[in-house]
Every structure is written in C-alpha cells, then in structure tokens.
C-alpha cells in the first residue's frame, strides 16, 4: 500500500522571478527518479503539494502542460512560511512533490468547442497549462477557437511574458492582454478584464469559459458572462481554500459536502450555485 503523504523527491532545475515586484517565482522541477517521472500523469488544472522538509507543505496549481515532458512548473506567490522558503531556495535544491491532486479542467467536455480563457494576475498558472496543452500540435484540433483574455494590474505583474509574446504571433489563438494601468513602454490594451471581456468575448454559443483570477475580478466578470448568455454549465473556475492533506481527509477545505482538494479545485458555476457560499 503506497503512502499518499510521502513527498516524491524532485530537484529545482531552473528558477525564474516572473514579476517586477519579485513576488512571483516560477520553479521548474524535475523528479529525481525516472520511474517517478513516468508514473506522474496529470491534466491541466490539477495541483500538487510542494514540500520543503523542515518548513512544511503548500498546494500549488501545476503551471506546465502535460505536453511539456520532463519537468513540472509551479509559479509561487511569496506569502507565507513555505512560499517564502520556496522563493529562497537555489537551483539544485531538493523539493518534495505530492500529486497530481484534484480533478483538473474537464478537457474532454471542451472537445469540438471554442474555449474562452479569462485570467487575472498570478491566477494565470493553471490557465497557462490549459492553453499550452491545447496549443500543442497533437491537441490543437481538439478544440475550435481559443481566445485568451489576460489582465494584470501593471505590465510588470504579467506572468510568462515570453510566452505571451509567442502566443501573440500565432494565428491559431486570439490573445488579448490588458493591464489596469500602463507605463511608458506599454503599447497594449489598458482596461479592466470585465470590460475587455465585453469587447473581446466570442459568441457564447458552443463556447466554454474558464475563469481564474482574484475574487474581485471574478465578481465583476461573472455578470458579464451571464449578460453574454454563457450558461452556468459552461463556465468553469478553479477555487482555492486552505488545504493540508490534499486528499479529502484533513477536513478544512470543504464547501458543503464537497472538498476543494478532492472534488475540485475545478467547479462549474452550475455546481457552485448549488453549494453554500462557504468560500
């Protein structure tokens, strides 16, 4: 019987500070053992518990796509004990991984449909995984139009800038990047995500919307999606709650009878409507 609480050893292959405020750092991890790498299968939207022995564990969405073989990426917001420690470790340091955990995005449901991805700030991590997955030559035919609307407060706070530039060059994805406030070098859009959505959204028909961002963005974006006639069943989001075990046992991340760690973190708005507002 394998112990689901044991961290699988991995090593930091590369570390990169993403944002101008230096609060977001992406770690690229590689499993120490080949058999662990081979046994690790995930879908975009799943997460892992990363652990630093002596500091503890914390959950992070997987920012890389299953199509990017060989390593896993996590983008970490410096906030507490574990995340601060994860900001300070050097390349080559050993990190424990438990996962993949949670359900992930329902990519099978998206087959043959358009996908609208709406992201805000540092919540773009698992959305990066999703977009990268569908942009892979093997998967690009699985969905029709891909529209990505991504916003941050300032240009410096955008994640994955190099990739955004790559995506902007492609013809098989519509990318709209916006900032709340530009700077002297910013030539892109300025505007809040909910407003940009109004201009840039594809027709709701045959389209699934996936939205991830700070609560305030979600609060104002959701009514816009409703106005655009997206039904609740076709709007998905990924929730966060305080977690420990990640496998539905330690108790704390429940919303009603469901556990965000095990039954989520991805929920449709149709599901959330039926749950207590306990998040």
């Amino acid at each position: 019987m394998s112990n689901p609480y044991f961290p699988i050893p991995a090593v930091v292959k590369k570390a990169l500070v993403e944002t101008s405020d230096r609060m977001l750092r992406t770690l690229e991890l590689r499993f120490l053992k080949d058999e662990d790498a081979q046994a690790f299968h995930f879908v975009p939207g799943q997460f892992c518990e990363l652990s630093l022995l002596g500091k503890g564990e914390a959950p992070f969405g997987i920012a890389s796509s299953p199509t990017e073989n060989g390593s896993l990426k996590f983008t970490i917001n410096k906030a507490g004990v574990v995340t601060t420690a994860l900001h300070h470790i050097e390349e080559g340091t050993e990190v424990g991984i438990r996962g993949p955990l949670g359900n992930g995005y329902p990519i099978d449901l998206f087959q043959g449909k358009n996908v609208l991805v709406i992201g805000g700030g540092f919540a773009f991590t698992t959305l990066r995984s999703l977009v990268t997955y569908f942009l892979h030559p093997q998967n690009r035919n699985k969905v029709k139009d891909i529209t990505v609307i991504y916003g941050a407060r300032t240009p410096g706070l955008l994640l994955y800038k190099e990739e955004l530039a790559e995506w902007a060059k492609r013809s098989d994805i519509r990318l709209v990047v916006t900032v709340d406030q530009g700077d002297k070098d910013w030539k892109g859009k300025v505007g809040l995500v909910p407003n940009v959505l109004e201009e840039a959204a594809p027709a709701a028909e045959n389209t699934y919307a996936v939205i991830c961002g700070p609560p305030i963005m979600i609060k104002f974006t959701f009514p816009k999606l409703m106005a655009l006639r997206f039904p609740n069943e076709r709007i998905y989001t990924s929730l966060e709650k305080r977690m420990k075990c990640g496998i539905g046992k330690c108790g704390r991340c429940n919303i009603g009878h469901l556990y965000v760690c095990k039954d989520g973190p991805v929920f449709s708005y149709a599901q959330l409507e039926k749950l207590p507002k306990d998040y």
Partner: protein
Amino acid sequence: MKLKLDKKNFIPFLQSLMDEYDLFAPVQLAEGVSVYKKIDQPEEVDLSIANPQKPAKEIFFPQSETMFRYEKAGKESRITSTEEIKRNRILLGARPCDIQAFSLIDHVFAGKDYTDTYYVNKRKATTIIGMGCDHPLSTCFCSSLNGGPFHREGSDLFLIDLGESYLVELLTEKGMAFQKNKFLEEANEKEISMAKGIEGKATEKVKPSIPVNGIEKKLDQMMESPYWDRVQEKCLGCRVCTYLCPTCHCFDIMDEARTNKGRRVRNWDSCLSSLYSQETSGHNPRPTNRERTRQRLMHKFNYFPRNFDRIACVGCGRCTLYCPAHFDIRQTIKEIQEGSDK
C-alpha cells in the same frame, strides 16, 4: 461462542494478551482524567471507568502522530517511514459508541480514492474487545443513532461485567482465535442469563429519544438561518467537543525541524478554530463562531450523511458532558428538527 473470565484471572489474562499483542485499554491517569493508552503493566487497566474522557479513536488516529522522519545532507535528504505496525494490537474495553465511530471514520481514512496508511495499518492490525456499557450516563443517546449500550457491531470479542467475572463473547473469526486462551472457560446458563439481565437494564436506560431522522433534509434549508446566531452565542470556541468527539477526524500537518533532522507530524485540529480555515492572504471563509459552529453541526448531520449515508455522531455524549458552556447537542438536534429557525 460464550465464555467467561473469572476476575481472579484478570491480570494473568491481560498478561497472556500482552505476550502476543500490544495492548491498549482504558487507564485512569488522574482523578477524572481517563484515556485509552498502550499498557505497560496489566495493573494499569481500569475497566470500571464509565466511558473514558478521550475517545478510543486515539488508538488509530493519535492526537499527535509522526508521519515520517527526515534527515538532510547538503541539498539531498532521506525520509524514513513510520507507518509500519510491527506487532498486532488489541483494543480492550472500548464502549460500543466508540467502536461504532470507527465504522464512520473508516469511510474517511480508508476512502476509495486514497488510503490513509497510518490509520488503516493500525486498524487492520487490531482486534477489538468491546465492552457492554452497563452504567450509561445521563448524556448518552447512542440508541438514537443506530447503536446501543450493548451494540456488538465492530467488536471481535465482547465483555459483559457480571461482578465476579466477565462473560466473554467471541463474535468474529479474529475473536475465535481466543477460544484457546487458558483463562477463558465455558460460561454456564446462569451466567448467560445474568448477562442478559444486565444488558436489558442498560438498554432500558438509553431508549431512543433524540429524533435524528430527516435532520439532513432540515439542515439543507438552514445554511443562512438566524438559528446559527443563537448556537454561536453560547460557544466559547474552546474546541473540546471536537477533540473529544469519536467521529471528528480533522488534522493539521506540520514540520518540526531540528538542525538537519526533523519530522513531519499531524495533530488533531478543529473546525472551531479560526486558524483552521484562515488563508495566508488573510481571507477567512469562516470568520466568526457563527460559521464555525455551523460547520461542525453541518458536517455531522448534513455533509457526512450526503457523502456516506450515515450521520457522523454516535451519541456518546462527550461534547455535552465536557462543554464548559453546557451546550447540549441533543437540544440542538431537537431544535433543528422542530424548526426553531430563529
């Protein structure tokens, strides 16, 4: 099969168990402080305690438990597992309420998605010797929750105190293994009928009285009810009800570091603590006692039944008995059922 154990042979009997097993049984630590713990000397065992303060869940789910130990050398590290159980175990003298609670938290720890090896390894290695609860307390309401003071489900062997001796029932295959124990002799008709009398009397004392049927449906409509304001007014947030509850299973995980060595450990946690759901950002989805007391009751009487088709309460009465504010869960159940939605 019904056997008996003469109390004169009680200590040698315990010794014979300890020769083969790690023995866990009720112990009086100090006046009014009783727990189930690993027995070092057979004389420590005290079966006269009505129902130990701390529930028997601790045998499978300790208050504090090492998950693994680690040692770091430079950038590398080594983890040593602590989940293996080296010797089979006996849990002696657990009351039917605590034993019924195992079948509830089994759903969580032995769940179909992930197996909690710490809990499951101990559970599998343990033979349970239950004990008839011949002096139920005024706070007991096990019979309202599919149990009873002499409920035998979950026990491998079952003891009934006859005064001079114990009647020993062998109930399962694991239990039958004790048939050959030299201190157990055949019980006679008189002893068997005496046991029946004791069982009848105790059962009479704890009649089903608390109306739990349909409480899940009632609570479905009560998430935003002003009733929770009333519930929380009384609660001090001390969390004793959750720690002493045989079905509460929440835990926290943390690392304890000592230079290059340390351990990961899990500790009982409680939904009544504000830190329980407090996020690093500062956001807390359950910011006051209102949301927290609601979570405790909703989990037991609504969420758990939705997931596992059973109410997560066994009527042991500990939360009522030990609450410093005299919060009576039986009263709460009645109020919810009567629709005291105010």
